[in-house]
């Protein structure tokens, strides 16, 4: 019936800053690229984000943060995912927002595959997500769900 299963993405904003324009722009861009985007709104705790990722069975999680609390919050998101049996390498984890150069290696080490900062184009993000998903599906990582109609 459907040619291809849509990519399911979670866009979430951890922490206390209420500036969600960036997150919404990205969510809309991914939707317009044909993806199903679960958007949870602002002020999410790491547990809420991990729980949403689990229940919604997304293959991509994008976090947006502008408050500077990423060094504090992102490891907790990764830990909360892990607690629920979701390892950072099973899904595509990326982040966007105001994140200094110096912090990037640590985030990559955590499992964040890309950090999009102010000036990044939505097209870059779309292509990044698509490429990852295509590779993942080619690799048969979804082997256990094989067998369409």
């Amino acid at each position, binding site marked *: 019936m*459907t040619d291809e299963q849509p990519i399911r993405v979670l866009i979430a904003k951890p922490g206390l800053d209420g500036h969600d324009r960036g997150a919404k722009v990205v969510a809309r861009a991914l939707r317009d*690229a*044909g993806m*199903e985007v679960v958007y949870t709104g602002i002020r999410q705790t790491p547990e809420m984000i991990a729980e*949403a990722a689990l229940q919604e*069975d997304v293959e991509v999680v994008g976090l947006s943060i502008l408050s500077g609390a990423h060094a504090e919050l992102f490891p907790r998101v990764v830990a909360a995912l892990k607690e629920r049996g979701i390892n950072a390498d099973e899904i595509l984890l990326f982040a966007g927002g105001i994140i200094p150069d110096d912090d990037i290696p640590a985030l990559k080490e955590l499992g964040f595959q890309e950090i999009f900062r102010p000036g990044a184009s939505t097209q870059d993000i779309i292509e990044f997500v698509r490429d990852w998903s295509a590779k993942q599906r080619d690799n048969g990582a979804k082997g*256990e*769900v094989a067998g*369409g109609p």
Partner: protein
Amino acid sequence: MTAATGNGAEALSDGAADLVERLLAGDRRALARVISLVENRTGDGRAALGQLYQHTGKAHIVGITGGSGAGKSTLANALALELRKRDRTIGIVAVDPTSPFTHGAILGDRIRMQELAKDPQIFVRSMATRGEIGGLAAMTSDVASVLDAAGKDVVIIETVGAGQDEVEIASAAETTIVVLTPAGGDDVQAMKAGIMEIADVLVVNKADLPGADSLKALLLAATTSASRGRLETPILTTVATKREGITELTDAIDEHRQRIERSGERESLRLERARRQILALLRQRLLEEALRAPSLDGSLEELVRGVAERRLDPYTAAARLIAD
């Protein structure tokens, strides 16, 4: 947990069989994965449903429908919290529209259900309509069945705006709540879309806005003529954001289930639903098979052109396809 399925059941792959087993043991991630299998209409999804079906039929399936902005998600949130107080476990299926142009969707119902994420006994799943005519109702019902099999006491299906899809989706529910608001001419919309007839419980939400009383009066007048001559449809007022009227609403939902249980209507609803499900699937399978027939190669396009150019009428074209 390798219960025998009847003839014609599809084989379950090892991976999916493991997921089904884990789901029945209470594993939430397995539950999420199985829902994806079902939603993506995979062979494994159908086979998993085949295995799970014997575990369904216990949950109370509650539909919430109404125009966009009526407060359905907020109401579902408030209802879930109240039901948890009554020690019920909850599944929620929240449906949002897929864009017919890009096939993408923003699934934003969780925004109004923040508090629910902390409770492991509540499982919320967002679903896009994926633009499949007639297929959406079946899919929503299947996802509700998976949550039912996972042992949820109440499964809430929250639908998109108003329209025929609503009526179909509501047919999967045992108790359907139709939500209206004093603002925005909802009363007129309600009559137009014919959703009054499917309401088992009518809710005037945002009842702190002016016009709530007159809407309630109007509904009272409308339901007496539309209530199918069976049960009186309760009309309740709520302010979901302030959790006002939620206890009464929960009572009304419980009472509705008890009433249809006692009157025997629940049994006839089940038969009706089963018949509809089988026929809908039959229709879909026959169509798929007919369209897949090798003899069809090229001839469909030929007929399409013929009808478009008025050389042929659509009835004759369809008859020819069947004859082939």
